[in-house]
C-alpha cells in the first residue's frame, strides 16, 4: 500500500508546480458557470419547472458538474496510451506492481491537487458569487462517497481506452469518442430528466450515469432517505466492480500480445 501512496505523493508535487495552470482553469470554470447561468435562465423563461426540476436545482446540478468535472478527469488514457506507444510499458512489467493499481494511484495525486486548487475554489465562487444555497440532507453526506465511486468508474473507462493503444495507434479517436459518450450520456451537460422517457430508461441502465448523474442528484435533491440513495450507491458499486473485472480481463488479453510479439 505504501508503495502506491508514494506514487500519489510524487505526482501531487509535480502538479503543485503548475500553479499558473490552476488560475486559468478556475477562470475557465467561472466563465463556464456564467455561460451556464445565462443559458439556463433563458431556458427557464418558458416555465418554472421543467421535467420536475426548478431553475435552482438545474443550475446547482450543472454548476456542480463543472466543479467535479476536473476531479473525474484522469488522463489515464493518454498517459497509458503514450507509455504503450513508446514501449515504456515494458519497464512496469518488471516492477513488483500491479499495473492497474499503479495507474490508479498515479492519477490520484493529480486529483487531490485539482480538488484543492480548482474544485473547492469553484464551489466557493458558486456559494459566494452566485449565492447558491444547498439544503442539508443525507444526500450531501453521501456525496463524497458517491464521488469516489464515480471516480473509479471514470478511471476504468480511461484505463480501458489507454489499453486500447495495444491494438491501435489512434488513441485520439477512441479517447474523444469515449469522452463524448460519457459527457453526453452521463448527464454531465444535461440532466437526464431532460431526455425523452424511452432514452432516459436506457441511459439509467448504463454505467455512464453513475459518473455524473448519481452524485449530482445527491446534491441537487439531498433531502431523501436511504431508500433512494441506497440503491443509487449500490448501482455505482456494481459498476465499479463490473468494470474493474472487465478491464482486468482486457489487460490480460492485451498483455499477452505484448509478451508474444515483443511489443
Amino acid at each position, binding site marked *: 500500500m505504501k508503495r502506491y501512496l508514494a506514487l500519489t505523493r510524487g505526482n501531487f508535487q509535480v502538479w503543485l508546480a503548475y500553479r499558473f495552470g490552476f488560475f486559468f*482553469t478556475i*477562470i*475557465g470554470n467561472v466563465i463556464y458557470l456564467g455561460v451556464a447561468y*445565462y*443559458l439556463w435562465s*433563458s431556458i427557464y423563461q*418558458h416555465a418554472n419547472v421543467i421535467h420536475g426540476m426548478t431553475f435552482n436545482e438545474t443550475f446547482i446540478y450543472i454548476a456542480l458538474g463543472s466543479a467535479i468535472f476536473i476531479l473525474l478527469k484522469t488522463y489515464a488514457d493518454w498517459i497509458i496510451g503514450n507509455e504503450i506507444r513508446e514501449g515504456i510499458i515494458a519497464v512496469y512489467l518488471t516492477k513488483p506492481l500491479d499495473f492497474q493499481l499503479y495507474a490508479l494511484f498515479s492519477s490520484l495525486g493529480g486529483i487531490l491537487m485539482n480538488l484543492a486548487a480548482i474544485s473547492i475554489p469553484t464551489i466557493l465562487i458558486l456559494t459566494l458569487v452566485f449565492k447558491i444555497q444547498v439544503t442539508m440532507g443525507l444526500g450531501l453526506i453521501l456525496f463524497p462517497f458517491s464521488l469516489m465511486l464515480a471516480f473509479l468508474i471514470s478511471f476504468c473507462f480511461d484505463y480501458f481506452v489507454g489499453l486500447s493503444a495495444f491494438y491501435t495507434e489512434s488513441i485520439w479517436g477512441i479517447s*474523444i469518442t469515449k*469522452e463524448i459518450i460519457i459527457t453526453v450520456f452521463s448527464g454531465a451537460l444535461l440532466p437526464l430528466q431532460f431526455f425523452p422517457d424511452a432514452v432516459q430508461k436506457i441511459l439509467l441502465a448504463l454505467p455512464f450515469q453513475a459518473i455524473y448523474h448519481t452524485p449530482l442528484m445527491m446534491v441537487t435533491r439531498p433531502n431523501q432517505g436511504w431508500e433512494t440513495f441506497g440503491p443509487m450507491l449500490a448501482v455505482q458499486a456494481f459498476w465499479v466492480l463490473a468494470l474493474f473485472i472487465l478491464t482486468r480481463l482486457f489487460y490480460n488479453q492485451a498483455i499477452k500480445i505484448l509478451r508474444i510479439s515483443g511489443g
Partner: protein
Amino acid sequence: MHSMGEYLRLYFIIEAQYIKARMQYRADFIISSIGMFFSSLATLAIFWVLFDSIPDLAGWTLMEMVFIYAFYMIAISPMQILFDHFWQLRFHVAEGTFLKYYFRPLNMMFYYMSEMFDLKGLTQFFVGIILLIYASVQLNLDWSLLRLGLLLITLFSAALVQISIIVAATCAAFWVINAWPVLGLAWKLREFSPYPMSIFDGAFRFVFTFVIPIGFVAFYPSQLFLRPEEISPLIYFSPIIGIGMFAVTYWIWTKGVNSYTGTGS
C-alpha cells in the same frame, strides 16, 4: 522572397506529400474521423434534446440553432485543418526544436503551419456544409448570388477570428513555461460560439463581442442570413473583425519569434 502564388503552390506540394504519407495509416484516419464526427455533433445533440422541452431559446428556434451551429462548424474547420501544428508549439519552444524554422527563406508562420494538415477536420467541415444546406432548406432561406458571396465572406472572416484566438493563445508559449492552460481556456471558449449571444448581457456579452469575440465566429454573421431585418450595425463589422484580429495575432507571433533565443548558449 516568395510571392503569394508561390506560397500557395509550395503549400499544395508539401501538403500533397504529407497527406500521401498519412494515408498509409488507414485505421487511424478512419477512427479519428469517426471520433471527430461524434465530437463535432455533441453540443448540437444536446441542443436537439433540449428543444424537446422548450419551444425556443431566447427567441431562436431549433432550425435556426442548427444553422448557426453549422455555420460554426464550417467556420472553425480552417483552424482545425490548417493550423493544427500550433498545438505543438509549446513543446517545440521548450525543447529548442523550434529553431529549425528560422533557417529557411520562408515566412515562419507559413513554414510552421505547413508541417501539419489535419485530415480528420475535413469530417467536421463536410458535416457542417450538409447541416447548413439542410437548415437553409428547412428555413426556406433563399440564396441569391449576392447572398452566397456574403456567406463566403462572413465564413472567411469567422474562420480568421477563430484562428486568431487560438494561435494567439499558443503564442503564450514564447513567454510562459506552462502555456497549456491559456490554450486550454481559448479552446474551451470556442464551445460557446454557437450559443445565441442574446442570452448574454452585461460583462459577458461585452467580452464575447469585443474582447474574445467568439460571437463573430458564428452568431453575429448568421444573423445576416437568419434575421436580416434585426441586425445591429455590429454585424457589418464581421469581415474586418477577422482581418483585424489576425493582424493582432500575427503581431503577437512576430514578437514571440523575435524574442525566442532557443535553449543553451
